[in-house]
């Protein structure tokens, strides 16, 4: 049964407990690649939230009304990639035409995440968890929000790392990966919270 409480629980679960970057290890490439600067990280994350929602909006009906009735559930991955890629291109054109300001701020990030694994992951996860449409949308938004939180946190951490003087062999990517691991461990602390929150 869909209740507001249930939807919020899904949102929080997707944001913190099943955080796509830090718990499910999807979308690592933008997480490591674009988290150097805070403003870039923000732009990227907002684009991810946007694309996750739109992708869910389209892939959920396709799966439910087209693939499952025809017994083609196994075609999920290919169809989703195809649809998401085409859709993001379309959205980009529409934005460029009608909302140039938003297009300029999302900028290069939109095409970058067309077939990002986190986006595809959300769509497939929606189906696997047998969510209803509303639940799927909340899950998509929560997942995007989780990505935003992970990116912002990590961008902040990386800026601090820049100011430290790590041992020579750890400089650059190694220390980044280590800190990503530690941040990921810290997110394990959220496990179980949401269930108890709504008791």
């Amino acid at each position: 049964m869909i209740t507001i409480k249930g939807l919020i629980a899904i949102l929080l679960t997707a944001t913190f407990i099943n955080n796509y970057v830090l718990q499910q290890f999807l979308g690592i490439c933008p997480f490591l690649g674009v988290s150097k600067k805070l403003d870039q990280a923000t732009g990227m994350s907002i684009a991810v939230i946007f694309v996750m929602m739109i992708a869910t909006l389209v892939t959920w009906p396709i799966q439910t009304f087209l693939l499952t009735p025809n017994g083609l559930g196994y075609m999920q991955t290919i169809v989703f990639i195809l649809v998401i890629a085409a859709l993001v291109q379309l959205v980009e054109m529409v934005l460029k035409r009608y909302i140039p300001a938003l297009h300029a701020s999302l900028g290069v990030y939109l095409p970058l995440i067309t077939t990002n694994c986190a986006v595809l992951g959300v769509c497939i996860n929606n189906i696997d968890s047998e969510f209803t449409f509303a639940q799927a949308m909340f899950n998509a938004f929560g997942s995007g929000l989780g990505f935003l939180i992970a990116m912002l946190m990590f961008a902040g951490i990386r800026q601090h790392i820049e100011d430290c003087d790590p041992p020579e062999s750890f400089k650059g990517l190694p220390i980044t990966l280590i800190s990503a691991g530690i941040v990921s461990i810290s997110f394990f602390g959220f496990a179980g919270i949401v269930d108890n929150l709504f008791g």
Partner: protein
Amino acid sequence: MSSATLAVMIVTVIGIICAVMLSVASKVMAVKEDPLIPLVRECLPGANCGACGFAGCNGYAAALVEDPEMELTKCTPGGEDVAKSIGKVLGRKAGKMVLMTAVIGCRGDNSKTARKMEYKGIKSCSAAAMMFGGTGKCKYGCLGLGDCAAACPHGAIVIRDGLAHVIDEKCVACGLCTKTCPKGLIYIQPYYEAVRVLCSNHEKGALVRKECSIGCIACGLCVKNCPVDAIHIENNLAVIDHDECIGCGACRMVCPVKVIIGSGHGAS
């Protein structure tokens, strides 16, 4: 119908729908971009350094095409050649380009001025400047930790003896270094300038003497010897009015501490 055929059909249909949708959209939604913009963009160096005051080369190219009043010479890294080639594309005349360079307003290396503390913190000027104004006795001078050198995309700044030096041949006057210097010591100035004051210390002369052997002591000899009244003492520091200066070099000759330097010598 076998399920394989069905699968192929469905994916093909989805693919065709997407393709039609996208190709229609690309026609309908096409944004009319001035065909001149990519041409102008071609002329620019593409370093996106921001010296022109725009976010990148694309921004400057768009502004050039859209605004007929826009100066063609804003791209200092590109220099006169770029201004001329843009002029050719747009059919406008490029104004006179003045060759610019970065100038470090300090000559106090380790042999001229002493350290007042042993600094073992982060190797960055902006961090050191937060600690009681930095490591040097002179609180206006170069800290020598190389924030400017790190910011320079062309490798035109080197730190020698605790002082930043500009390599004139490599400097394109993009101005990135001026923004990073916590002491605000770096200026973008015309490359050919008869004289420059390379000190930024605003303390009184006696104190400057104690801090640095090559700091402006505001003695005023340059002011007295200037034939056109182009140099003045402002806030205990000699300042040259380059509009008035005739480049005779009289101030350079009389300066007892040799902080007034001819161009080309730069800080190096």
